[in-house]
């Protein structure tokens, strides 16, 4: 019974560990899959964490287009939607994603166009119209189909297409022509949030093209992104949605990260050791450049660092759970050994060595740890699947095979560790001292 309770305790601890780390892995998995779908470069305001907080002159599009190696340049305006059909859009967040349709159609890879599941994608005739393309998630939420009209910021729009990338970071966008987006959100007509560009020649390295673009705009006057201005934007993202909260946390982290870099680029440069960090600091370190070019690698490196911080936090939480589980194993094994100490004395009286007795106890506790690990990962994995299926648009947890394997190894190790003290105690006890306890 005691062993069963200990097994249960360990199972819950390991399941909790799998669950907690699947949050970080889910974020990694989602972000990696997201950026796999967006292989191009993003030109943004220096220091802005994401395009939502960036602002650049629209007129720079032509200049970027002229740079050797640049293929298609797509101007984008990204704004948060506050109301749809008169209802506040708080959770999950919705973004109005204005895109320059003519250049959009020239992109070799369009994540939204390639994931269209109903209706049609934009044509040149959609320029200046209120035609929108939304995700399946948004269509389901609003219960709309192709041809339906609905209100965004109290302005009527018509649904012409539905996409489904199944990526929570992308499926928040309501796509519309860039000029219509500006009109609806009263966005400055001479500005854009960012430029998304594809290379004309794939043999050119992202870093090389990034440097060419940065060099082109050197010494141009442009107000640097102010971290404080993101506070009001971010406040709109506060919600009860888990994914939204994680994304908000990510945005906050990116904000603080970039804010630190903007404030003290020399420190960052001095501390940067890895090629990724050096590369990033080079682009940010161009103090006189009014733009920042983000490559897929840059995004990946930033997300990795965020993920590491999140992992550290989750490790602390898991550590507390595991400490309780290990103490539970030690207690169980100690009680178990105490109850059977006479038997261990009998085994020694029959020629078992102290090592044989220790191996037996260590094996039992390892078996307990292993069993707890197997039950724990099974429970944790099932829980992540259930959670993902129950809230597909809000949560994307991912328990990788590596995480599951690590959990079993960790649990088994904890089991052995927990049984070590009782094993040593039983091993050292002379046989007759043990037998006399009966």
């Amino acid at each position, binding site marked *: 019974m005691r062993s069963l309770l200990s097994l249960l305790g360990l199972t819950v601890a390991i399941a909790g560990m799998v669950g907690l780390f699947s949050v970080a892995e889910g974020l990694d998995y989602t972000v990696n899959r997201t950026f796999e779908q967006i292989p191009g470069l993003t030109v943004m305001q220096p220091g802005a964490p994401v395009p939502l907080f960036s602002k650049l002159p629209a007129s720079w599009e032509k200049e970027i287009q002229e740079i050797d190696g640049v293929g298609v340049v797509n101007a984008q305006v990204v704004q948060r939607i506050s109301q749809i059909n008169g209802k506040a859009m708080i959770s999950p967040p919705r973004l109005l994603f204005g895109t320059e349709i003519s250049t959009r159609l020239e992109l070799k890879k369009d994540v939204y166009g390639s994931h269209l599941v109903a209706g049609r994608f934009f044509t040149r005739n959609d320029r200046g119209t209120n035609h929108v393309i939304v995700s399946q998630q948004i269509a389901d939420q609003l219960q709309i189909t192709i041809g339906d009209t609905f209100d965004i910021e109290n302005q009527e729009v018509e649904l012409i297409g539905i996409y489904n990338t199944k990526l929570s970071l992308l499926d928040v966008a309501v796509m519309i022509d860039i000029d219509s987006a500006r009109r609806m959100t009263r966005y400055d007509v001479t500005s854009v949030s960012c430029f998304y560009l594809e290379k004309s020649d794939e043999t050119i390295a992202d870093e090389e093209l990034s440097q060419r673009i940065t060099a082109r705009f050197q010494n141009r006057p442009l107000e640097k992104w102010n971290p404080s201005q993101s506070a009001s934007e971010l406040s709109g993202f506060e919600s009860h949605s888990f994914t939204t909260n994680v994304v908000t946390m990510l945005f906050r982290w990116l904000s603080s990260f970039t804010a630190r870099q903007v404030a003290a680029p020399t420190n960052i440069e001095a501390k940067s050791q890895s090629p990724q960090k050096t590369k990033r600091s080079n682009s940010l370190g161009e103090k006189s450049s009014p733009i920042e070019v983000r490559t897929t690698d840059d995004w990946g490196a930033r997300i990795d660092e965020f993920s590491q911080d999140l992992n550290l936090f989750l490790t602390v939480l898991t550590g507390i759970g595991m400490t309780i589980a290990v103490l539970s194993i030690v207690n169980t094994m100690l009680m178990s050994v105490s109850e*059977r100490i*006479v*038997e261990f004395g*009998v*085994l*020694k*009286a*029959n*020629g*078992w*060595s*102290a090592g*044989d007795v220790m*191996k037996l106890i260590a094996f039992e506790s390892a078996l307990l740890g292993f069993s707890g690990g197997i039950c724990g990962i099974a429970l944790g994995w099932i829980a992540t699947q259930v959670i993902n299926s129950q809230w597909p648009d809000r949560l994307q947890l991912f328990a990788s095979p590596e995480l599951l394997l690590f959990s079993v190894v960790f649990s088994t190790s904890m089991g052995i560790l927990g049984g070590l003290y009782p094993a040593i105690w039983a091993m050292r006890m*002379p*046989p*007759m001292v043990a*037998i006399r306890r*009966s």
Partner: protein
Amino acid sequence: MIEVANVTKIHARGETKVAALSDVSCQFATGSFTFVVGPSGSGKSTLLHLIGALEIPTSGEIKIDERSLTEFDSRQRNEYRRKEIGFVFQNFNLISNLNALDNVLVPFLPKGVTTGQRQQASDLLDQVGLAKRHEHRPHQLSGGEQQRVAIARAILKNPTLILADEPTGELDSKTGQEVFGYLRKLHSEKGTTVIVVTHDERYFLDTDRIVRLEDGRVVDSSSKGD
């Protein structure tokens, strides 16, 4: 030949030290059947445990066929207990989560049990009247049956010395007779040296040797027929 020479054993219980044996000397001939008798607390069981290398004397020496037990290291003591000694305890001391057959095989479990040993254990259980009890666990057996399993466990290793500590202490007289029957048979058929600690003098034969202890000292060492 087992030679116990000037053996003293002091048990320390906290600050208190109790002398279980004081300067005890005696001998047990190879192939003899010896009873160690005496009142409670006289040191009978302690003497048995020292001969079985379950405990180490505080002073003095015990020799088994000219080999000094006190000079054995722990590995040698384990091997001595595993190969040469068969223990039979008053309260049987079977392993509760093993069945009768596995309990008989306990001494060999760490090194791995051979098919021959398993067959031999099975035969031994049959011989002590437990043919239909191989798969039963200790709590499913009566006291007499448990003691017969313990005797089979002691016999399986074909020991040169059987040490029995009050083997009939928790059994009725009929079952006690049966247990002694097995010990006598082993002694007579294989020439095994048997040393039995008991209070019960009903099982003595004229040919048996009696070592009488009082207050941790040998007060008499003679044959029943003397």
